[in-house]
């Protein structure tokens, strides 16, 4: 008899496997560092440092291939908490956070801290409000949970359709970040890189679904974390003689302030509700790093923080991982681990921004044009940084120094004079996190399209379960690649819009579905539709609507949408029928942390009924056979 995946123990050798992954990465870096000293060119180093880890991820995904639905959709419900925490953290931060938050911290300093706070509070809110209950429900997708919770195919299909904008936007954003990195360091165009990244993540997701996404994603997280920690720690030792960047960069603020003043950086006044985040192109850093609320006012800061927190808490790609642990308690622990990893990254980013800004301002803005540092040529060639002595005073002021937001991170090893292999290690880290996040978004989107939309309505004519998901994965990857080749999007703004969609559409509806006794399917449907409509109105007319003289921003629209959705959901709940007995029983079962998940119990009941029916028919058959024989005689 086959034992269900969820009843088997997690692989006891996981620690050894990921120890091997870590050792392989460290060995690769050491070998390439030696080859660099022996004269290997930058192109060969870049190819080796990017392509070898890609082969490793693909190998892991191949090893995790599966055709069992329970493994394919929820990784057999036996992922240890720490490993799920790895992937949750990678999805939360993503490539856009890895590069975009670092760049935003470089340009905005104090004001950018809202992003890290939003991630952390969102993760905590998800762990308290939603994750344990979704684990007890045990549904394979978020729309499937809502469908089962209220016995409604309409609600399930609507939730699947409404999760399309946030998940697809984040998928496009992460593919774009990964493709930007590939195009920056490999001899390929952006379009080719987009196609390559889309094909790569589609292969990972097709091979083993959630299982391969989880195990390849864990390796990608480790590569991302190790790369970041190694480079930042080396820089910290070089600059401060201490290997704890998060604790020591405060000692550099006096020097940074002096360099900023010399470069002509003066305190700024924020425009109310302008939400003036830096764009993706080359731009000057004109705000003093430590000045509180120079570009984002306190209101903007709080709106950005809260919108991100609600968006992270209700992000479908994160909540889709709420059923991969063995039980409710393990699921809570995995959220705790993820929060720890996200917080560690959020604490490191301001240190990176301080290091880069101090060195760039000290060595460019304070130095005469005639004796600029050698690393400037490398960064200019890569179009990461540009300078021009526009006023001809023989020095480069802050307004004459432009840098690209999303590549600030790659400037760190170069401005500190580290070997090129460490720049490539940083690039590999960012690429790994972008790939882990994009594969998760792709799988979440495709699994829901296949399970909640296609198979719900196709009935008996539907393709087999896994084939439908494979087709959806391929279609979604192709669509994302085509969209990115045609459209020009700012990854940070697009990600904020996606989190806004999640906050407005899913946060209020999940809050009601899990925590409100009076809720019914119409209430949840109304809440989802209201939040979605507000965010869609923002996406279409956002530039035309002005609030206090500033155009409407995604965070403000998402919070307004979430509030309206909550009010609508409660109102509709009061004016429609009370929840049925089955809905009330589901709610009580969901809130009981003990025992099998509701979905698995239903599956077991269905299997028992089917085997009972089969046994009954086999008992009837011998009795029927003599009569058949008699009649034929």
């Amino acid at each position, binding site marked *: 008899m086959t034992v269900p995946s969820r009843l088997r123990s997690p692989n006891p050798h996981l620690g050894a496997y990921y120890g091997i992954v870590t050792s392989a990465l460290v060995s690769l870096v050491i070998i390439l560092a030696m080859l660099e000293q022996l004269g290997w060119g930058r192109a060969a180093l870049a190819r080796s440092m990017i392509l070898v880890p890609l082969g490793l991820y693909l190998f892991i995904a191949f090893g995790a291939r599966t055709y069992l639905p329970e493994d394919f959709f929820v990784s057999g419900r036996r992922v240890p908490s720490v490993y799920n925490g790895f992937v949750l953290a990678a999805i939360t931060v993503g490539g856009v956070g890895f590069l975009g938050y670092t760049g935003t911290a470089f340009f905005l300093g*104090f004001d950018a*801290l809202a992003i*890290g*706070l939003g991630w*952390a*509070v969102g*993760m*905590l*809110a998800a*762990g*308290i*409000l939603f994750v*344990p209950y979704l684990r007890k429900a045990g549904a394979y997708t978020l729309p499937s949970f809502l469908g089962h919770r209220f016995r409604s195919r309409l609600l399930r299909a609507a939730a699947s359709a409404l999760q399309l904008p946030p998940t697809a936007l984040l998928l496009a954003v992460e593919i774009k970040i990964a493709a930007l990195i590939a195009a920056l360091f490999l001899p390929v165009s952006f379009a080719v890189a987009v196609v390559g990244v889309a094909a790569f993540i589609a292969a990972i997701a097709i091979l083993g679904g959630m299982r391969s996404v989880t195990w390849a994603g864990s390796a990608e997280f480790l590569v991302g974390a190790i790369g970041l920690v190694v480079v930042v720690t080396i820089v910290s030792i070089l600059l401060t003689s201490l290997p704890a960047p*998060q*604790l020591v960069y*405060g*000692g550099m*603020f006096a020097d940074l302030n002096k360099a900023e003043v010399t470069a002509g950086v003066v305190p700024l006044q924020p425009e109310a509700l302008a939400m003036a985040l830096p764009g993706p192109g080359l731009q000057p850093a004109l705000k003093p790093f*430590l000045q*509180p*609320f120079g570009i984002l006012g*306190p209101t903007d*800061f*709080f709106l950005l*923080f809260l919108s991100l927190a609600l968006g992270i808490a209700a992000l479908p790609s994160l909540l889709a991982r709420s059923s991969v642990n063995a039980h*409710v*308690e393990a699921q*809570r*622990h995995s*959220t*705790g681990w993820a*929060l*720890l990893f996200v*917080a560690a990254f*959020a*604490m490191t980013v*301001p240190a990176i921004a301080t290091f880069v800004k101090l060195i760039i301002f000290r060595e460019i803005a304070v130095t005469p044009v005639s004796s600029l540092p050698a690393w400037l040529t490398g960064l200019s060639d890569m179009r990461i940084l540009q300078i021009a002595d526009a006023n001809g005073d023989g020095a480069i002021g802050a307004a004459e120094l432009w840098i690209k937001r999303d590549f600030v991170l790659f400037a760190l090893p170069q401005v500190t004079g580290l070997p090129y292999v460490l720049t490539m290690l940083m690039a590999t880290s960012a690429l790994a996190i972008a790939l882990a996040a994009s594969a998760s978004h792709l799988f979440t989107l495709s699994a829901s399209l296949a399970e909640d939309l296609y198979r719900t309505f196709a009935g008996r004519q539907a393709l087999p379960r896994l084939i439908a998901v494979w087709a959806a994965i391929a279609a979604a990857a192709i669509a994302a690649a085509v969209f990115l080749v045609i459209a020009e999007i700012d990854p940070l703004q697009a990600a904020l819009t996606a989190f806004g969609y999640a906050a407005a559409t899913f946060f209020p509806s999940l809050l009601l579905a899990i*925590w409100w006794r009076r809720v019914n399917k119409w209430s949840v449907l109304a809440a989802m539709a209201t939040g979605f409509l507000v965010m869609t109105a923002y996406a279409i007319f956002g530039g035309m609507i002005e609030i206090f003289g500033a155009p409407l921003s995604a965070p403000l629209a998402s919070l307004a949408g979430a509030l309206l959705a909550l009010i609508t959901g409660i109102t509709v709940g009061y004016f429609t029928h009370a929840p049925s007995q089955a809905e009330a029983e589901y709610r*009580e079962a969901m*809130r*009981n*942390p*003990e025992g099998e998940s509701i979905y698995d119990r239903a599956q077991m009941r269905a299997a028992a009924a089917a085997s009972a029916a089969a046994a009954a028919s086999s008992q009837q058959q011998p009795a029927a056979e003599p009569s058949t024989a008699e009649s034929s005689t």
Partner: protein
Amino acid sequence: MAPEIPDDGDPVHRHQIQTLILAVGILLVTLVAAILPVAAFSWFNRFGFLQFPLAFYLLAQGFLFFIVVIAFWFIRVQERIDLARAESEEWVGR
């Protein structure tokens, strides 16, 4: 040793109330802890910690430390609440 007899009410109801109070309490405390350094940044920045202005430190690190600690504390307390419910239900079942 005999299991402890529940002293009041329905264990399911008690579990749900305790869970609700814990969730609301933690989220409120977290929200207040996030708002405080933003609302009173100039007052906090009069002080320093590890060579950081205090408001900057709180938002860049202090709050994040706090939230990680509170998350693991929440997990522990919630597990105790869940365990109490399981034990009570087992006792009632007997």
